[in-house]
């Protein structure tokens, strides 16, 4: 649906060259909710803006529905653009227009007739839950309501793609959740592919099926959310994952463990999906001559599946502990030793 091929973007500012994107390649499939996460200045917004040609790559290609944007004539490009809706961090609503007029705007630009506009706008306002606000002005709305207007406006032309530029970053956590649920509904019910740029891991966790992590103009990690969350490799990814999935032993428990003199090893176990429900711990305590103590546990729901993290202290002889470790590895459970 959207493809980035070796995209490079350079900016020139006061004679200085700045590279915003360094050889980025990504593929977004139809039906994806694809999240791009990174700290500010990582280049993620620049990447997003290339999809509707608000930015043009210095080198490389951007393809939407198989068409290379750089090779299109003005008219063809505007056709492609009409197939793409966009929502913004600060909503970008016209303060001088009512909610109805704001949502109608893209259709007015396309010279659609009044009756169709009226029907389409009402339909969209109904969909986003603002049917009673059509005559209100943006100033009279809350942040969440403003973003709903932005979403209705982005969808009024029946696009196949929705671009979200930090769409929840200006909202409080509760409102963020409701907007994310709406985006998920748009993806499921209207079959719209969503590309979302954010610095909040919560957004990725709640709705994305794919994620790309960006740093200094590079994509440093990309793939299914469950894989990237389960096995983060790069430092930045690990930091992001930590913001939503806790896997560290609480300090007080750690102190306790340090004081204890019994021979022990502490293993962190990660369970995905089906593995989560296997009775591994009870098997371990039956099959091996060890005592065990759970010092930390966390189960996170991701894309309808679960990621469980258990940190367990095992007490026993070195040989037995080694055998136990091998057993866990053979059962295809991600395990690593944690120092106490």
């Amino acid at each position, binding site marked *: 649906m959207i493809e980035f091929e070796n995209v490079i973007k350079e900016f020139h500012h006061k004679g200085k060259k700045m590279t915003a994107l360094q050889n980025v390649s990504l593929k977004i499939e139809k039906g994806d909710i694809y999240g791009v996460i990174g700290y500010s200045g990582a280049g993620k917004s620049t990447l997003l803006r290339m999809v*509707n040609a*608000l930015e043009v790559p210095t080198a490389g290609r951007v393809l939407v529905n198989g068409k290379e944007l750089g090779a299109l004539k003005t008219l063809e490009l505007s056709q492609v*653009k009409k197939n793409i809706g*966009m929502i*913004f961090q600060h909503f*970008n609503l*016209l303060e*001088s227009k009512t909610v109805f007029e704001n949502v109608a705007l893209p259709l007015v*630009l396309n010279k659609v007739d009044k009756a169709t506009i009226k029907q389409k706008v009402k339909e969209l306002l109904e969909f986003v839950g603002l049917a009673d606000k059509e005559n209100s002005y943006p*100033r009279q709305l809350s942040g969440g309501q403003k973003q709903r207007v932005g979403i209705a406006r982005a969808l009024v032309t029946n696009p196949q793609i929705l671009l979200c530029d930090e769409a929840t970053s200006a909202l409080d956590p509760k409102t963020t959740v409701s907007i994310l649920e709406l985006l998920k509904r748009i993806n499921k019910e209207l079959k719209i592919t969503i590309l979302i740029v954010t610095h909040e891991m919560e957004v990725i966790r709640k709705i994305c099926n794919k994620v790309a992590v960006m740093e200094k103009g590079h994509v440093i990690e990309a793939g299914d959310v469950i894989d990237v969350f389960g096995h983060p490799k790069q430092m930045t990814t690990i930091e992001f994952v930590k913001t939503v999935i806790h896997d560290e032993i609480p300090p007080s428990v750690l102190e306790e463990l340090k004081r204890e003199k019994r021979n022990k090893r502490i293993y962190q176990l990660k369970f995905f999906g089906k593995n989560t429900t296997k009775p591994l711990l009870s098997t371990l305590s039956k099959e091996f001559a060890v005592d065990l103590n759970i010092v930390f546990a966390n189960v996170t729901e991701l894309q309808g599946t679960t990621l469980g993290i258990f940190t367990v202290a095992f007490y026993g002889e070195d040989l037995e502990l080694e055998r136990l470790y091998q057993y866990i590895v053979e059962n295809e459970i991600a395990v690593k030793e944690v120092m106490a």
Partner: protein
Amino acid sequence: MNSVSTDLIIQSIYETLYMVSVSLLIGTLIGVPLGILLVITRANGIKPKRIFFTLLNGVINIVRSVPFIILLVAITPLTRLIAGQTYGSTAAIVPLVVYIAPFIARLVENSVLEVGPGIIELAKSLGASTFQTIRYFLMPEALGSLVLTMTTATIGLIGATAMAGTIGGGGIGSLAITYGYERFNTFVIILTVIILIIIVQIIQGIGNRLAKKLRHE
């Protein structure tokens, strides 16, 4: 009534309103498009045109630098060409337009520049043409501020009409100068100033109210 008749005062008010309204109308027709051109042709505008912008910007600055009383005399040939006369209220309209149009252009420029970059980004994302961006995005968003701008321009014009008296334009301001100031008639000065204060208050009041309504506050 202390050497000025009521008829003269009413005549003067009429002359002031005539000069202000006509020159404001023509000045707006010239100034608003120039102001918009200043916004869109600047370096980071939606249609950058460096040479055009530099020229327009320069000309506006030069005209705005000339004091109105000098302008009034300096453009007499132009006044004769356009108005067919160089004396009277109608003749005064030519220099008033030359004075107010660049001022309006500058005020419009400021108002339109206040429209945030987010709105322009939105227009681009919706594939709006330059004309559509001005018509559907910039102008509606700047309207509230533009009304205040026009209020400022109108009040500036009222001040300028006082000097139009030097070429026989008449009006309240020149009444104050010729019958009040030059004849040491304090009563006439105070009377005319009160009339001017009332006119300015009414205009500013209308402007503020309209702007507030347009901004949906």
